[in-house]
């Protein structure tokens, strides 16, 4: 009985969480320019209950809109750690996947998922607003199915992530490893 109630309750919580995604934009990359059309009358993301928040304490999604230099990564990590679980990371554009056009830059990180767990990537340079809306819908489905568990992975592999972050902060990008288990966990 208690289990059932707990299950029901977590289902309600997941539903509410999915229908009310508040974002904190990390708008240092060029992809930020795609956000205004998504928010305003053409695409209107507020109809999904989404909105932008001023501080990470209030937000559920950390939206990384493009490339991250190592200096910015420090801030991203701090912002991510200040967010309250359940929290999701949406990485935006090719730069967060493989460095994109900054693939050979000495002070730009190449794969965001090595430093913080990314729940969803949006490919493209840059992705169109349609792609962004589609991604958010996908994220909602993932939350509904209980698949978007990046924050749990961050807790589980905290030390590995920290090691990678430290290596990056010291400009030793070659020491950054894959968070292996994390990838496997994602497959399941």
């Amino acid at each position, binding site marked *: 009985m208690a289990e059932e109630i707990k299950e029901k309750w977590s289902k309600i919580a997941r539903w509410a969480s999915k229908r009310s995604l508040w974002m904190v934009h990390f708008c240092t990359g060029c992809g930020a320019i795609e956000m205004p059309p998504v928010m305003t009358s053409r695409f209107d993301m507020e109809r999904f209950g989404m909105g932008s928040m001023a*501080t990470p*304490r209030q937000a559920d999604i950390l939206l990384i809109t493009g490339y991250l230099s190592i200096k910015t990564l*420090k*801030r*991203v990590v*701090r*912002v991510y750690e*200040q967010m309250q679980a359940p929290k999701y990371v949406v990485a935006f554009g090719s730069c967060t996947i493989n460095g994109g056009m900054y693939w050979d830059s000495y002070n730009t990180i190449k794969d965001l998922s090595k430093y913080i767990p990314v729940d969803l990537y949006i490919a493209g340079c840059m992705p169109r607003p349609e792609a962004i809306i589609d991604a958010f819908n996908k994220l909602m489905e993932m939350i509904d199915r209980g698949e978007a568990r990046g924050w749990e992975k961050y807790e589980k592999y905290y030390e590995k992530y920290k090691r990678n972050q430290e290596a990056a902060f010291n400009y030793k990008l070659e020491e950054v490893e894959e968070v292996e288990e994390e990838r496997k966990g994602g497959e399941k």
Partner: protein
Amino acid sequence: MIWEAISLMVLLALLAYATGRLSRYSGIFAVLAGFVPLAMLFDWAPTAGLKHLISLGFEKSTAVNIKIATLHFSITPLSWLFLTMVGGIFPFIALYAISYFKKAPGGFFGSMTLALVGATGVVLASDLLTFFIFWEVMSWSAFLLVVRGRDRSAITSYFSFSALSAYLILFGIMVLRSEAETLSFSSLSSSITSSRLTLLAFISMAAGFGVKGALMPLHIWAPRAYSRSEEPFVAYLAGGLSKLGYYGIFLLFYSFVGVSVITRFGTFRGVPYLGYSLAIFGALSAFIGTVLAFMEDDLRKLLAYSSIGQLGYIAIGIGIGTPLALSGALFQAVNHTFFKAVLFLAAGSVYYRTGRWKISELGGVAYRMPFTFLAALFSIFALAAIPITSGFAAKWLLYVSTVDKRFVFLTPIMLIAGVGAFLYSFRILYGVFLGEPRYPDIKEAPALQLIPMWILVMPLVIFLIFPGKLMDVFGEIFAYYGLEGVSHTDFAITTSLSSYNTLAVIFALMGGLMVAFIIYVSRPHRVVSHYDNYLSGEIPEVHEGLSLHAATRYYKPVEDLFQPYFAHGAERFYHHIEVGLEGVGDGLRRLFKTTVSNMIYLVLAGLLLIGWWLTW
């Protein structure tokens, strides 16, 4: 018995002074002296309509023959109430002072006890001579304490204003004496006539008392003396002694001159013009004091200006003079006694631990001194009249009384001053106690400081729940002076306009707190450091000397708007007077420093003048 008690207090004052060099605990004599008025209070409880608990045999009235004059003392409900204010807080402040001073200052405790003697004498006096003698004892022992602050501007301003106040009161007393041929309170008002001379005496005495009550524009000494003297004394000055000014004004209206005479000078909607103008001065005090308070960075000056503002409310109540307004004024006087004493003591404790007075240099003290913070928080609630302390009942009575009389100027001024009180309250709360933890290594205030503070907070809680108990005492006072009472029960006060029930507030708040508590415990939380803060992703720990405390010129936008109108307005006025007086003095000096022939002319002119006056 009264005289013996007063002698005992003087003896204890001398003892405290004499043993000051021997031990830091010489202050215990001051504490003992403080229990004498307390004993009187308990003994006289039936005077105020309370239950008789202790019987010590203090007589209700007495006359003492000293060589040159006869001193008369008696106890009335009003003097009982004011004795609770000046006497009730004294032992606790003295106790606090023992721990506050590292080295025992015999002079401090001696003068404090003398001030208590003066204050006790003032409230027990039943003729003008006794009143004036003890008034001066109180005033000048307080002066000794101001001198201990070693600040020239504070000393001179306190001295000149006290002297002014003494002259004004003495002048008033002399005029009343010549009018009524008596000095006794009980027979004064029946023999006074409504002549112009009486009016002059009234105004001069009101001004004299207004100085002590820090009424604008006679307040100049207050911010200086309050901000440059030792903290326990300031707590007593603001909490206890300032009330004596309003005690005097109250007596002026109801005993010295009498309402029947005062109303003959004209009334405005049932309120005498004299009272109404007092209320206007009170309202100006309340508003300007408040505005100056929230523009102030020095904690003590802020509290001083806030005192001026809060005391203004008492003036408003006494000025309007309806039972409702008088209850409000007396209620405010009682509240102010306790919350302002606690606030100054808490400020003292903060200084004791941090060594800072500037609000912009303090911050985060509450995390290390939670009990001091809570005491201060409670008194700030009372100051801002938040309805979870007794502070609200006083303001409410005053507001309702002004609406009742339809004074369209007083009500908004008082209310906006009340909102202004939130502003400076929060400046204290945020600037001193909350915000960035700048003093991570300080300790909580010593127990000897905390206990007095918390004892002084208690009345604020008790009178929240039982405002009616205090209203009973006021009822006795009103009966004594032949006024109607305000209808009330233990928990509720009812007026013709509306009613206020504290039980409803308390129970509804408890219900609300239950809801809040359910939400609070429903989800777990984790406590993080004050530096784990959202600063646009910035990490404050890595920056040297980065301040997270936004407390410097906290109300800058308002300051910029108000500064031209308010800054040093009254001080500039007194400055002009000073320059004028200097000019006169200069001329006189030049007159006397001239040649012999001029001197002869001067003497001749003087003689002629005297001759003319004698023959006229």
